């Protein structure tokens, strides 16, 4: 198999791969930012004191976490047109990825907030800080630091999940592999190159994760 590995074909398709690589990065980055916003909002709703909002957040989080991303993707992709809403494939993909990761982000953020000792929060209340001041100055800074490794882990998952977007014909890394496979009948070159690009992203994010963990341990000592 390796003797027959055709590097020239890969070189020929490199423009396609680099374009698709950027597309994967772009789709993941946009969804990640969206997921952070939605996750923060959902988490705030869930731990807030207003019952109906908390219930909505729980339903959102649990239903996302109990169903596969692919089913969610198909639900939106095939479901929105029957509601009369038309969206481009990219928008559908970003929407689904954002909603999906948002639920996991909400749980990660909640874990971070709950890791804050209640004494700190009580001290904040006793000092006369209001809810937003407590969030801003007491809860969020250490909570975000504590959740950074988990968030980077979710970013890795998000990049890998974006591969499913190829199934609704969005141009991204996996799609590039499929194109090379179907145009030249070269699945080996096609999918191994795709895998190599994903591994590149994975190793970068993984080293960021271990860096953030080390920083965290360092901070806990002091």
């Amino acid at each position, binding site marked *: *198999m390796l003797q027959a590995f055709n590097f020239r074909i890969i070189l020929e398709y490199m423009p396609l791969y680099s374009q698709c690589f950027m597309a994967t990065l772009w789709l993941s980055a946009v969804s990640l930012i969206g997921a952070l916003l939605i996750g923060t909002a959902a988490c705030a709703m869930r731990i807030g004191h207003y019952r109906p909002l908390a219930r909505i957040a729980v339903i959102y989080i*649990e239903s996302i976490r109990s169903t596969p991303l692919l089913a969610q993707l198909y639900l939106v992709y095939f*479901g929105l047109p029957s509601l009369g809403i038309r969206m481009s494939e990219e928008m559908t993909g970003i929407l689904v990825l954002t909603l999906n990761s948002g639920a996991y982000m909400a749980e990660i953020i909640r874990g971070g907030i709950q890791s804050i000792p209640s004494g700190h929060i009580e001290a904040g209340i006793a000092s006369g800080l209001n809810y937003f001041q407590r969030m801003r100055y007491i809860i969020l800074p250490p909570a975000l630091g504590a959740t950074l490794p988990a968030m980077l882990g979710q970013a890795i998952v998000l990049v890998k999940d974006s*591969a499913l977007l190829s199934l609704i014909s969005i141009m991204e890394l996996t799609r590039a592999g499929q194109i090379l496979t179907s145009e030249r009948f070269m699945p080996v070159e096609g*999918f*191994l190159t795709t895998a190599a690009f994903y591994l590149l992203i*994975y190793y970068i994010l993984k080293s960021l994760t271990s860096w953030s963990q080390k920083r965290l341990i360092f901070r806990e000592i002091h």
Partner: protein
Amino acid sequence: MWGYYLEQLIGSLPLFLKGLGITAAVSILSLVGGTIIGFFLGVIRAGGIKPVRFLIGGWVDLIRGTPFLVQLFIVFFIFPDVGIHLDALPAAVLSLTNLSACFICEIVAGGILAVPAGQKEAAAASGLSAYQQMRYLVMPQAMPTILPPLVGQYVLLIKDSSVISVIGVVDITRVGWLTVQRIPEGLMVFGLVGILYFIICYPIIRFSNLLEKRMKFGKYRF
């Protein structure tokens, strides 16, 4: 119109139950296989000789760094190139087993490494064999750390099994995809698909949360 489609959907309910059976069968097969292989690899990764440890770590990184969809394509499209012809179903079970084995390996290794070194030294000093140390000392103490994420991993596995629909295994997601070609009501069809997944996954998620709460007290603390 809506009522007509609903009637059609209820008519194809047996198909959905068949898909549910396939999803369950594939998940259980790869769950059992993945757990056995994962525990085996995890024990070696936590305490074996260095080259083997390194090898397992590298393999786990490769699997964790690439999307499951790409792994599935590699097994399904590239293996025939090297002379291994697999049908869709064995290919799906093989790649799912491999995936879950890698994730479980990391969970098990993490659990074993979390047991204080003094415990292992005490066991060695008492003259227990390597197997006895693992069986009577390390594993019982590692189990509380391992169990909750292990059960969580099973949920991820069931959800990941939806991806095998892409290579033509007729699981729930595939049944939904086939049905939506006849009944163009995406929300309804994939709503049903989602509900079926939810019925399986949600109890397991609750069980995992319960385990996490319980295990807090059983864990070795120092």
